[in-house]
């Protein structure tokens, strides 16, 4: 089974912001703490655009309907659907029209719950379409990028790695921040400040 499309939190927040309009539904799937993710997403959106975001937890299909009635406008982030049973999904799907909102709704849930949604709530799934994303962490500075930076540093200075390390050990390294970065990328961070 192919995995879900992945998104970092920042681009996902953009998707939420740019979707804001008539009854857009997005889903963010996370293995981590759903409430924390919802809060982080809310913070990200508020920081980006100054919009007030409603964050709510629901415990049942009826609860979701109540939440929608109470918050018909704007961006809403909803957690708690992890706990939905078959009856909740069934209800939510049958009464899908009652979930219609004027703004964007984001469901934050775990992988098991999204399977339930797709299989038990096909009408709601149709509203969501392909807007289902697995939350991924930002990519670190990987080996390829590290090497690109080291190549640039060598070309710029005319020095080789070993010479830089030797000079750092002797306390002779020039003052440019580039050399501190060089040591860090070589894994010789313990020489910083020597």
């Amino acid at each position, binding site marked *: *089974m*192919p*995995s*879900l*499309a992945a998104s970092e939190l920042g*681009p996902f927040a*953009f*998707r939420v912001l*740019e*979707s804001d*309009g*008539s*009854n*857009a*539904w997005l889903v963010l799937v996370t293995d981590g703490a759903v409430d924390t993710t919802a809060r982080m997403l809310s913070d990200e959106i508020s920081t980006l655009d100054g919009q007030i975001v409603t964050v709510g937890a629901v415990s049942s299909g009826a609860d979701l309907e109540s939440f929608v009635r109470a918050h018909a406008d704007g961006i809403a982030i909803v957690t708690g659907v992890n706990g939905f049973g078959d009856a909740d999904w*069934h*209800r939510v*799907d*049958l*009464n*899908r*029209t*009652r979930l*219609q909102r004027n703004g964007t709704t984001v469901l934050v849930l775990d992988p098991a719950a*999204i*399977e*339930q949604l*797709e*299989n038990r709530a*096909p*009408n709601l*799934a*149709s*509203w*969501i*379409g*392909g*807007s*289902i*994303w697995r939350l991924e962490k930002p990519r670190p500075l990987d080996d390829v990028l590290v090497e690109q930076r080291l190549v640039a540093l060598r070309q710029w200075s005319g020095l080789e790695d070993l010479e830089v390390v030797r000079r750092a050990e002797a306390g002779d390294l020039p003052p440019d921040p580039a050399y501190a970065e060089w040591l860090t990328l070589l894994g010789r961070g313990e020489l910083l400040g020597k």
Partner: protein
Amino acid sequence: MTRRERFKQYMTRVAAAADPALTIEQKLYVHPPSAISDVIVRHLEIEPTSRHLVVGSIGSGKTTQLLVAAQELNSLPDIRAVYVDVSRKQDLVKLKPGCLVALAGLALLEGQPLATSDERRWFTKWANGYWLHPEEYGEPDDDGVQVEGVVTPPRPEWHEISAMQVERLARFAEIEREAGRHFVVLFDSLDRTTNRSAFTQLIDQDVSALRRCNIGVVLIGPIRSLEGFGRLEVDRFDKLHVQGAVDVEQDPGGRDFLFRVLRARVEASMLPDREVLALVAASGGVLRDLISLAKAAGDEAYLSGSEIIEMSHVQAAADAFGRSLMIGLHQPEIDTLKHLRSSGGFVWTTDDDLALLATRRVLEYPRRNPPFSVHPTIVPLLDQKAG
């Protein structure tokens, strides 16, 4: 206009889950060839008390066709049509006979400028009380004493619906006809029903009762109405209309229609023709999926920093869409889809098969032989493992 403003505008015009009424209001609606709304209106024009069942896959545009039909019917001088979304008022989990009669009556009374009458008041009280606790609500207390006659009349088909209220509704409809208009009601959202017996009872009793009242009925029903036991429901109606996916592969007219649907919402300077055609192909002919894919492609373009939507964005959107459709599929279902992909063979016999149809993993093109096909966005993913 800034880049952000251009994409914002684009997003408002490709809101896939927006109220279909908005699409019509914003003049984004494109009339399909052989629209079922045209067929329904033509029939009701001649037989305003006829009963029509509409079935079709999720996202195929059924609601929009009902809204268009209601609009067209209301342009006729001798018909008053009302669109009713059953689920707005009635919890579909608790479907019971009488709810369509009640809804029809409330809709009818809304448009009748009668002086307040007891009849009207009692019907409204009955209908409104219905939603709160239908299982408890008995006859209102205006009925007086019933005297049992010598001849026992046959039990009406709507035996679980108050006969008195049905008669009241019949009188309201008669008043409407005397004013020169036949009343037609178009019921939406019952296609989501999975409770076969509840739906069958509704059809048996409510549709019959509405027939008694000489009220025309158009009703969107569940796709299972077409199969097996469900055929009994079809027989309660005068006409069956199937709103399926558009055959974008084999029907050039259908392909052109969907092209125009997108072109009505966005110019070529933002979404070129080649990309529109790619979106049409990826949608499998399902209207809502087409709009959803178009929006997703727009997202990709905006997030990539692009000024226009390019093929790479369409492909990314289609890939994400296909992955979402693959969620929750188990190996037997994947095997079924692979078999369909390679041989065209799909026999709709089990609930699992029906689920594949209901969830759009399998699409049906009635005029094609064989009629079934795997959703295009899933096809390239069927052989992939996780990760």
